Every structure is written in C-alpha cells, then in structure tokens.
C-alpha cells in the first residue's frame, strides 16, 4: 500500500529498542556475543571446579597418603608438605578462573535482560561487566610479565652464583703442539 503523502507528520513515541539509543543491529551483535561468553564462562567454572577438587585431593588425600606410607622416612613428610602446597596452589589458581567466569556470566545475563527491557541500565551493566573482565585480564598479564622478569632475574643470579662457586682447581687445558707418537 502506498503511504499517504498528505498525512500529518507524526513521531513514534512507543518504546522500542531505540529507547536505550542502541541500534537493533548492536543489540543483535550483543545477543550473538552472549552465547559464546556464556559457553566459555560455564566451561571456566567447570574447569575451576575440577581444579578445586584436584587441589583438595592433592592437599589432603595425596599428602596424607604419602606421609603414612611405611618406610618412606623423612622424604615422605617433605613430599607431603609439597603436596599440601601444590594443592593450595591449585585452589588459588581456581579462583583466578572463577572471577572472569562470573564477569562473563554477568555480561550474558545483562544482555539477556537488555533484550527484553531495552533499558540503559542493563546495557551499562553488561558493558561494565565486560570492562571488569578486561581489567582483570590486563592485570593478570601485568602480573605474568612481572613474574617472568623476576624468574629471569633469579635464573640469571643463580647462573652467576653457580659459575662463581665452581672449583677453580681444574688442570689448565693445553693443546699438544706435537702429535703424540
């Protein structure tokens, strides 16, 4: 049907997706992103749960098992200590997975709410969760970078110390001037 060119000008005042100022295409992109972020967040949470289980197993089960092994001697208590340390380390490592997973789940949830509410608050909450995720990722990378430098420094110092503590009583290396008969 042809639009009436003589009709009075009017404005669409019913709230739609543009009530947030967000174009429908942007909302569609956010909805498509949501599926992937939710998928990855769930996988991270499952991975974190497995890490916590492994950590608990190492810290308590394995460590106790090693310590109570008959005839293992003082080495057993040392191994048990290491087991406890690695177990706790795994649990701390799991926390590093849980935080970004929660941020991504928060993002996915807010985008789902945004699709129905079209409110600016939901949009801002989704984007803020996203921002927090990247802030965490950036901080982790800085921490990793510092850790690398510290490790390289330690290795360098250890190398210098090892070379300086080498016994200097080795006989001098001499090449024979004349071939042996």
């Amino acid at each position, binding site marked *: 049907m042809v639009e009436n060119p003589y009709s009075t000008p009017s404005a669409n005042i019913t709230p739609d997706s*543009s009530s*947030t*100022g*967000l*174009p429908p*295409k*942007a909302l569609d*992109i*956010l909805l*498509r*992103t949501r*599926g*992937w*972020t939710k*998928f*990855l967040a769930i*996988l991270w949470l499952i991975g974190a749960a497995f890490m916590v289980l492994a950590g608990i197993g190492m810290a308590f089960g394995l460590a106790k098992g090693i310590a109570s092994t008959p005839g293992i001697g003082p080495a057993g208590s040392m191994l048990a200590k290491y087991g406890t340390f690695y177990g706790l380390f795994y649990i701390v490592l799991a926390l590093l997975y849980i935080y970004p997973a929660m941020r991504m789940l928060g993002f996915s949830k807010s985008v789902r709410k945004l699709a129905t509410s079209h409110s*600016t608050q939901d*949009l*801002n909450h989704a*984007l*803020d969760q*996203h*921002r927090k995720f*990247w*802030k965490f*990722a*950036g901080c982790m*990378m800085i921490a990793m*970078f510092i850790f690398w430098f510290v490790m390289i420094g330690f290795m360098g110092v250890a190398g210098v110390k090892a070379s300086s503590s080498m016994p200097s009583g080795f006989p001098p290396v001499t090449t024979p001037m004349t071939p042996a008969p």
Partner: protein
Amino acid sequence: MEDTYAPPGSYESGSDSVINAETMDIFRRTRGWTKFVGIFLMVIAILMIVAGIFVAIRYASMGATGAGTGVVVLGVYIVMAIFYIYPARRLLGYSKASRQFLSSGSDSDLCQALDQIQKFWRFMGVIMVVVLVVYALAFIVGILGAIFA
C-alpha cells in the same frame, strides 16, 4: 564544571546516536585494557615467529634432513602465532572502533566495536570447542586402546 540544573537525559555525542554518558565512560575505560591485552598478544606472536625462525635456522645448519625439519618447525610456530594474532587484531580493532565511536558517537562505529568483540569471543569459543573435541577423541582412543590391548 558540570551543570547541576541540567535536565535528566541522554548524552548525545553524535548525529544519530543517543547513548548514556555512563556508557561512553565505560567504553573509554574498557578500550585501554583491550588495547593493552591486544598489544601484549601481538608481541607474544611476534616473539613466537622470531623463535621459530631461530629454531629453523638451527635445524637448517644440520644438513638437508635438518632443513626439512626446520621448515616444519617454523610452520608449527607460525600456526601457533596465528592463534595469537587473530584475537589480538580483534581486540585492537575493538579499541580503534571504540575510539572512533567516542569521538563520532555514530551507530556504525558502535556496531563496528561490538562486532569486533563478538568475533573475538566467537573465535575463543570455536577454539574451545575444537580443544574439547580433541580431548574427547583422545579419551575415546585411549579407552579403546586399553580395551583392545
């Protein structure tokens, strides 16, 4: 100084986009981090390629067989680097589009920024699916191997 008597409303930075001032601020604060992570990933990828070249040269100095192995090793390093370059490019693309959106406020720049981040997450998701499939196959092969051994 901010006008405390201004009516409540949306922040209109461009010609066709009406986005809250808080939204713009979030974009501004996100893009720094995505740029940083993008550059970091790009540096790792470059270091990987450089390491691959060094290893390939080392193999090449061993003779004809070593040269073949060196080429294969270099190829593996380059493929590994691509897995870093693609997400790094998407993150840098997001940061660039966010910057354009912050200055222009146009819907197309906003969509461009969101599209870059969508592509990043899709890539990460696909990689994760591939890894899970490989794990599942390895698990099945291991079980079958244990049964028929």
